[in-house]
């Protein structure tokens, strides 16, 4: 036990998420909690989902069967914080020409520096999850509504890309607090994302995938020697076969849902995927 | 772009990339400098007044 603790302290953190799709009701609290926490702007018409900034987006997927055999499942999609095939080789980080999005080796979080971004949108082209959003417009709040904006997250100017940061400002606040209190590490409860906190169904679990004491580790059972692939038979990651090596895991007891997580040829079964080729 | 930019790392990527870059910039820069200086010298020497080389 002692050994684990020392290990945990010395290994870099790897923040990740496990979302239980059996529990998720598709209510959308995570989306709104995220809007409110991160000063996400809104427009008069948000029905064009290709122009709607939703760091966390809840997808509705179905099994495609007829009434009353139809089944639906909701799938919340934050930024997947890909690590890639070698640590930090996320699809987006590797392509950003101005180092405006970066991979933190300490936390595994993919950051976005709005003031550095000059809006080339290459990262958006690179992201298969559509987790990145561009500020096509100046963010405008109806007169008076800007009063609810949180000082912890700067509103983004027009012309830059933004995305989920795993509420990194919460990590910073927790880390500063821990430092002031003379503690070494940020505890599991001290750093939770807004969506995790808000989920009324308790479907989201967030924590350090390198820390065996964290709930997310226990649920996911990541295999550190195999690109953190989960050893939990009910867990899957989105588009695992592309080698994105994401930190958001999904759990479902339904096979069709697990199968919807990745592309499979007609003769393949989920789980048939093997480690993809090395990239650049 | 320069070693004093904070994202600079001394690694193979930077050696190769910036090696190539600064090499090209140097060739272009020196080439143009040479042309301009030589032209100034030539002009001072009185060349180029005519309509032929």
């Amino acid at each position: 036990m002692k050994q684990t603790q020392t290990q945990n302290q010395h290994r870099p953190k790897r923040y990740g998420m496990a979302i239980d799709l059996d529990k998720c009701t598709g209510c959308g609290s995570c989306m709104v909690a995220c809007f409110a926490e991160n000063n996400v702007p809104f427009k008069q018409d948000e029905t064009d989902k290709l122009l709607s900034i939703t760091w966390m987006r809840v997808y509705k997927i179905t099994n495609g069967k007829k009434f009353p055999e139809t089944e639906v499942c909701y799938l919340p999609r934050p930024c997947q914080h890909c690590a890639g095939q070698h640590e930090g080789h996320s699809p987006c980080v590797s392509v950003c020409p101005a180092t405006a999005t970066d991979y933190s080796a300490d936390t595994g979080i993919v950051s976005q520096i709005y003031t550095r971004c000059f809006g080339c949108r290459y990262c958006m082209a690179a992201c298969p999850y559509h987790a990145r959003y561009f500020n096509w417009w100046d963010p405008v709040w109806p007169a008076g509504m800007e009063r609810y904006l949180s000082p912890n997250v700067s509103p983004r100017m027009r012309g830059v890309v933004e995305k989920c940061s795993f509420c990194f400002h919460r990590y910073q606040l927790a880390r500063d607090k821990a430092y002031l209190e003379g503690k070494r590490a940020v505890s599991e409860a001290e750093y939770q994302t807004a969506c995790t906190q808000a989920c009324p169904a308790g479907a989201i679990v967030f924590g350090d995938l390198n820390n065996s004491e964290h709930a997310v580790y226990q649920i996911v059972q990541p295999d550190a020697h195999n690109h953190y692939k989960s050893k939990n038979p009910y867990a899957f990651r989105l588009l695992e076969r592309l080698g994105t090596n994401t930190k958001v895991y999904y759990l479902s007891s339904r096979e069709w849902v697990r199968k919807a997580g990745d592309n499979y040829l007609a003769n393949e079964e989920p789980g048939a995927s093997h480690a993809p080729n090395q990239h650049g | 772009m320069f070693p004093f930019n904070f994202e600079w790392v001394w690694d193979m990527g930077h050696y190769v990339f910036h090696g190539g870059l600064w090499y090209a910039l140097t060739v272009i820069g020196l080439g143009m400098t040479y042309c301009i200086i030589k032209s100034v010298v030539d002009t001072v020497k009185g060349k180029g007044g005519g309509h032929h080389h």
Partner: protein
Amino acid sequence: MKLSRRCFLSFVLGGAAGTALTPLPWKLTDDLSIWSQNWPWTPVPPDGATNFVNSTCELCPAHCGITVRTVADRAVKIEGQEENANKTGGGACLLGLSGLQLLYGPTRVQGPLKRIEENGTIRFQPISWQQAIDEVVAKMAELRSQGKPQSVACLSGRDVGTVPQLFKRLLKAYGSANFVSMPSVEDAYASALRLTQGIDGFVGLDVENTDFILSFGSALLDGYGSPQRMMQAVGRLKKQRGTLVQAESRLSNTAAKADIWLAIKPGSEAALALGMAQVIISRGRYNSDFVNAHTEGFDSFAAMVKEKYAPSAVAEVTGIAPEVIAQTALAFAGAKNPLAICGRGKGQTPVSLKEVLAIQALNALVGSINRKGGAQTMPTYDYLNWPAVELDVTAQTGIAKGRLDGAGSDKYPHVGSLAHRLIEAIDASAGELQMLLVAECNPCYSLPDSDKVKAAFEKIPFIVSFSSFMDETARQADLILPNHVYLERYEDVPVMAGTVQPTIGLCQPVVSPLLNTQHLGDSIIKIALGLQGNIAKAFPWKNYESCLMETLGDQWPLMSDQGYWASEAAASSSERGFSTASGKLILMNGTLGAIFMAEAPVTASGGDYPLQLIPYDSIRLTSGYVGTPPFMIKTVEDTVLKGQEGFVALNPETGKSLGLASGDMATLITPVGQASVRVHHDDGVMPGVLSMPRGLGHSAYDSFLAAKGVNINQLIGTMEDPASGLDAAWGIRAKLVKA
């Protein structure tokens, strides 16, 4: 100028080269980027000291605990309370999370307004609070002096807690019995409790301890009761391998998560419940201990279901195979702590008395009344120990005239309020109602047949709205006396919504009032004082805050600290007994027999309207007093709303037969109204059914909400439950024509 050209050229080139060598262009480039990083029109939220205030959300009847994060004098985020009565962690529903958009939003009424009609145009003119109160007082005094105090009515969003009770008290002292509250499933439950148990109260659902939930269309995962409490309960149920059965015509989110989805024909819930009762009784699987010891009328109940609700008959009505009904009923009876739940959607509309009685009968048959994991009988909150009101002669005469909606009369003996009957009374005999006070509700939008409601409102000579928002009803008002919103005021909010632990939430001012608004409680007290005499005497408080502090007494310090007060959960024991004459729960007697034997209200049959339009409740939309905030509208799927156009969802088969592809425009026509809609094919909708959410199609509010989609209340009419008089509308006949 001989040298001109060459000179000029040299000058330009030299100048350019020279400037390039100075720091100027570089400095300029740098400055421009810094400017682009700090555009003055992109807001920078000011920093300040962070604080957390515990309060209660008032946006829906669940009244969940919230914690509001403030920075200096601004509220910046609402979160679910970590420690609260329902122990739901920090979870919150998206309406609760969006509350600050209502607080700081542009649709708030800025101060008291008076409606002015000039040259045929209507506008609202700001007036002073003194004038606003004076005008209300003058009008009320005038009506009273004419001996018509009963012509004043109040329509309120709630009827428990100090503010609604102050209102009731004002009307009583004034001389009117017309305090009408907006309808919900609580009305049906309350009637059932009175009829079967002789108790005034509400039903608590012990979802935390049940192992089998049989839900009759209740949107447990879409906002029924307290959304986070229900979701967590269902999560626990599934984790502990319990069973969730959802009987509903549409594949709702609850149905999607259910272990068994009974896709029943719309409106056949009561038949299904009674059919299941028949199976349980005929197979002898009822809890004979409970039935024998604590119920009366079992034999006649058994005879009734045997006669009328044989499996084949029920299968016909519900569309569910007899063996499925039997299996489900037996599984329900076989569970340790089964619970049947009543109330379609979020439970914000009533169901028929027959339906609630049938479902409660199921609970009784398996002994799940006042048992762990069952339906609990919760007594009405009675913490208001105010002195009795002294009625003068005018008041006595006025009250003796009874209620305009007929609730509690011989015709409708089982219910307390009938909002739609009030509307019909206005419509039928203009003049009976001279003045309407509207508080914390938006009937012109949220009652079925809303166009008719609006027309009735036109006939009311004087309407006072206390709305914080410029909603559809406020727009019809002659005076608007805006209330503070819940984040600016103190108020006690007793929790019902299926709770098993009597809880009183406390709303606390998180920020000081932003606008020229006044607490509704203070407005009531000021009106009462203005009316003088006995009426003023009935209000011995300096202001609302002192009234509240006095009422809550010793609990005040605790409540203002944690934001709520909760008693111990009521002991779950059938030994509690019932307050009927026999002390037993009545399964069947003459009154109930008549109700059971009556047909459930149905939509007028086929013919010209081959389809059925069924509204559903979405957790991403609100359909009550407050409008859906921008954050929530942003989460609405593009198959529900696209641009300004709303969708009607139908089965691909139905679409095919009508020649309507997904995305086509169509005209939706019902006997009540018609609307232009887009078609969306959805395999989760029963063939022959059109499915549409409540909560869209506002004509009021701002451009983030107004004119988006269709208000389904304009398309559905009232459907009066013959037994209770409640409007149990759950759909309407409809047709869909390609546009």
